[in-house]
């Protein structure tokens, strides 16, 4: 098992929203880091979880599988998942895998927080 080359910092924005700043490589190996971030950002009070992919440097299909796992967990808690900061390449991967139908993609943090697709 490789050492995850990733950091995920959690910021709370208001009472019901949390932003996770992802920097590095999203692979299956970073699952513990992501789930720790989810726990830190989660709780029943959080209804909207925003993933900031501006620092994403690499993602393989294991990373996409991990995001599906996160989605299942969030759905169980009736939480909405959103994303922003995706480069054109990673946005296309979200669209190709049709993950964008469950995780709404925004162009900026502002629009992600407001829930307005631009």
């Amino acid at each position, binding site marked *: 098992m490789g050492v995850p080359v990733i950091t995920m910092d959690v910021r709370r924005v208001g009472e019901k929203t949390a932003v996770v700043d992802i920097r590095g490589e999203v692979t*299956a190996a970073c699952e513990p880091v992501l789930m720790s971030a989810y726990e830190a950002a989660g709780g029943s009070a959080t209804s909207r979880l925003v993933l900031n992919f501006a620092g994403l440097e690499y993602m393989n299909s*294991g990373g996409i599988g991990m995001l599906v796992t996160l989605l299942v967990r969030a759905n169980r808690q009736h939480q909405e998942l959103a994303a922003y900061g995706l480069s054109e390449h990673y946005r296309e991967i979200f669209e190709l895998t049709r993950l964008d139908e469950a995780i709404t993609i925004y162009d900026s943090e502002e629009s992600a927080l407001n829930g307005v697709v631009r």
Partner: protein
Amino acid sequence: MPETSGTETAGPDRVASAEQIGLSAREAAAPHEVAPHGVAPRDAASWAKKVDRLEVDPREGVRGTNVAGRRLTGPVQGFGKMWQKTYRMDAGQVPPEQAIATWREHFPEFWPKGNRFAGALTGINPGDVALLDLAIGGGVKLSTGVFVLYADAESFTLMTPQGHMFAGWITFSAERDGDTTTVQAQVLMRANDPLYEVAMICGGHRKEDKFWAATLTSLGQRLGLPAPRVETRSTCVDGKRQWHHARNVWHNSMVRSVLQTLAAPFRRGKRTSTSA
């Protein structure tokens, strides 16, 4: 309580580990290089280019129906419970890259008899569409396909189109595990519609387990393993059915394949009379 079968089980109400769902944890150990701004990331060549609907060329030996014009379906678009199924084999001292290269190059040859995989002649590459004829009994072949979503030196992933038995992807990977190499196939799926969900419950899961165990065993034999042994683990990741996707049944390739099989003699007759 998650439903489990096979040799291992998951804990109560636990979402299955993404590490298990993941395809090649070794990829995370790759050199950490930051792609300069404007330069394609190093995974760019491993991913297929975006497609909205599948396009296929006719291939010899398969019917080739139920694929052209279909959209891809992931676990998000499926109907049934979400399952993660893992089939693992100890591949001894075979280097992971060699195991995956052999698998990619000779993929159709490892399939159980009666099933056809008609892919590109060059093996498995991102963006390829392969046509499948799968034996479902009664002399009927289920015609469907798969799309190569991702491929690198240590793993490759296939994604399914509308109408396939399941919505999701299956990843084939190899990694060093201590002194030995472990080869695995891992499926993350939901049955695509209510008919398939019933079929999976009524023997479909068992049939699929046998299929991939046989495939891995064939690969093991090709890699020179004296006695390949496959370990199977199934975990229900999400016990909820997505009823809003029940209408996927419209694309059901099993129903369409049966109808196409029944209609084939009439079509042949019509062609003959037209040409006469």
